[in-house]
């Protein structure tokens, strides 16, 4: 007998056990992926009934996606991609720089900086939504209004404690000898960073990249307070008005929901390994 798992289910063989497992895992799949599958099928179905969900397609059509175009869904999708693209780029650069300082240098005030990072992680961002809207409308000292701009949705997600700390942990593991060797060879600070440190950190970039992507893509309150005019709406916040749009119909809403949902699902499926790694490291660090 083997003891691989707590329940030892895998050791149970025989037709009855197999049948039980098929039913059990089947039920899990239905419960957790069923709604998503329903969305996928319904978005391609000529749905007229706003109450029902099509789980099995009678016929497939792209009609909903064509109509979605008339309701500016692709503009919202583009806005989402602009925000997530530049936001993620900024987040990665900011994280890598900060992590390099935290992992590789010794300096006074390091504990204080770490404390700041942890504080921002403990602080639920929803709580500062109201004052954040005031700050965005008139940035202190700079007096710039970021309401109804892409920057207003990009800058606030630019620094993320989680991704800085994950990156820092990873950089600490890069052997310092490599850096010293490069320095002896006469490489400067910048060159050492770009030719030695950064290439070695590629796996960690994958981790914070996929997390950053889903985090920014899932932003709701921020675009809600920044984008007042519909031409800056991101797809997630546009869904609500598509729902109340009488002439758009449920098909457009479903097509738009699918488009809003797919990118992060695809990112997860493509970067599963990195995702799991970040999940456990992030949870442990809390």
């Amino acid at each position, binding site marked *: 007998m083997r*003891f*691989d*798992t*707590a*329940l*030892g*289910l*895998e050791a149970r063989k025989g037709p009855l056990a197999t049948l039980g497992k098929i039913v059990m895992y089947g039920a*899990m*799949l239905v419960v*957790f*992926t069923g*709604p998503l599958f*329903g*969305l996928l099928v319904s978005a391609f179905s000529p749905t007229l*009934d*706003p109450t*029902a969900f099509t789980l099995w397609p009678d016929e497939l059509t792209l009609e909903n996606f064509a109509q979605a175009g008339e309701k500016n869904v692709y503009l919202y999708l583009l806005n989402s991609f602009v925000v997530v693209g530049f936001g993620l780029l900024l987040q990665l650069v*900011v*994280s890598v*720089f*900060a992590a390099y*300082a935290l992992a590789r*240098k010794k*300096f006074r005030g390091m504990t204080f*900086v770490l404390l*700041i990072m942890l504080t921002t992680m*403990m602080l*639920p961002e*929803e*709580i*500062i*939504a*109201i*004052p*954040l*809207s*005031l*700050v965005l409308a008139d*940035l202190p000292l700079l007096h710039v209004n970021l309401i109804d701009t892409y920057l207003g949705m990009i800058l*606030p997600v*630019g*620094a993320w404690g989680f991704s800085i700390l994950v990156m820092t942990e990873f950089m600490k593991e890069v052997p310092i000898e490599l850096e010293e060797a490069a320095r002896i060879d006469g490489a400067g600070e910048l060159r050492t960073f770009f030719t030695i440190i950064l290439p070695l950190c590629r796996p960690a970039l994958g981790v914070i990249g996929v997390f950053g992507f889903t985090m920014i893509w*899932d932003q*709701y*309150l921020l675009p809600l307070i920044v984008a007042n005019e519909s031409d800056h709406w991101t797809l997630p*916040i546009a*869904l609500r008005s598509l729902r109340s749009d009488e002439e758009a119909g449920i098909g457009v809403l479903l097509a738009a*929901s*699918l488009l*809003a*949902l797919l990118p*992060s699902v695809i990112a*997860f499926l493509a970067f*599963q390994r990195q*995702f*799991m790694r970040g999940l*456990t490291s992030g*949870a442990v660090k*809390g």
Partner: protein
Amino acid sequence: MTHSRRGTAVVWLLLAPALLLFLYFKFIPMGLGLWKSFFKVQPFLGDEWVGLDNYRAIMADDAFVGAVWHSLLLAVGTTAGSLALGLGLALLIEGPARYLWFVRAAVFLPVVTTMAAVAEVWRIMYHPADTGLLNTILGWIAIDPQPFLASEHSSLWSIMGMNVWRGAPYDMMIILAGLVGIDRTLYEAAAVDGATTWRRLRHITLPALRPVFWILFTLAAIRGLRVFVEVYVLTNGGPNGSSEVIMTLIYKLGFQRGELGVASAGGVVLFAATLVLTVAVQLMRRRQAR
């Protein structure tokens, strides 16, 4: 000397982008929120100092007190439900087999989905008429159609249902990571002693998972009271305020009624409550550890 000074300059240069962004979009808003909570905020007339009036107003507001209870109930229910279901799933899906890896990835999908989109899907599934998807399924097992989001008595529970659906797989993954770390020889020893599966679970697995449970509790305490998107999309606090939570109320106060001072006070209260909850969980954890 010059070298080390240059080194220090480089350090702060590297940290500057992160610190500036945090300052502008986290700490200044935090301070401003606290500051504005003592004022009657009027866009063109200038702010007027009102002391603790905003706090008095919000504490005396039945809607706010109700919202605090709804948030707490939702947080506790979601946490307990996700943890219980997550543990069950983790135990059932544990193992190195390839098909289990597939089941894990599939079950985990809800966690990475965009909340706003998923909430639209659930809103349709929760349709109160007997043609709604969930009511159709209930019909198969001869249960009468439920109103779900449309009734004051079930709106909060329905939101909780969706939250557990999305939260349990997350907890499952963290628990699975904890299960991997359990010493297999303990299971073997238990089997030699003739322990049943239940006893093995009760005396080996669950105690070993204790640190994992505390991590999940801590995360739940930080995240618990701040729910917004799911409520905003599913019910927007209705029907009749039965699912109003702190954040949806603050949002309405601030952006729809323009009561920025009162809304800021609400934000400060929410922050304090979150802090208390987090510290409480940590204290319980300490006591447990002793």
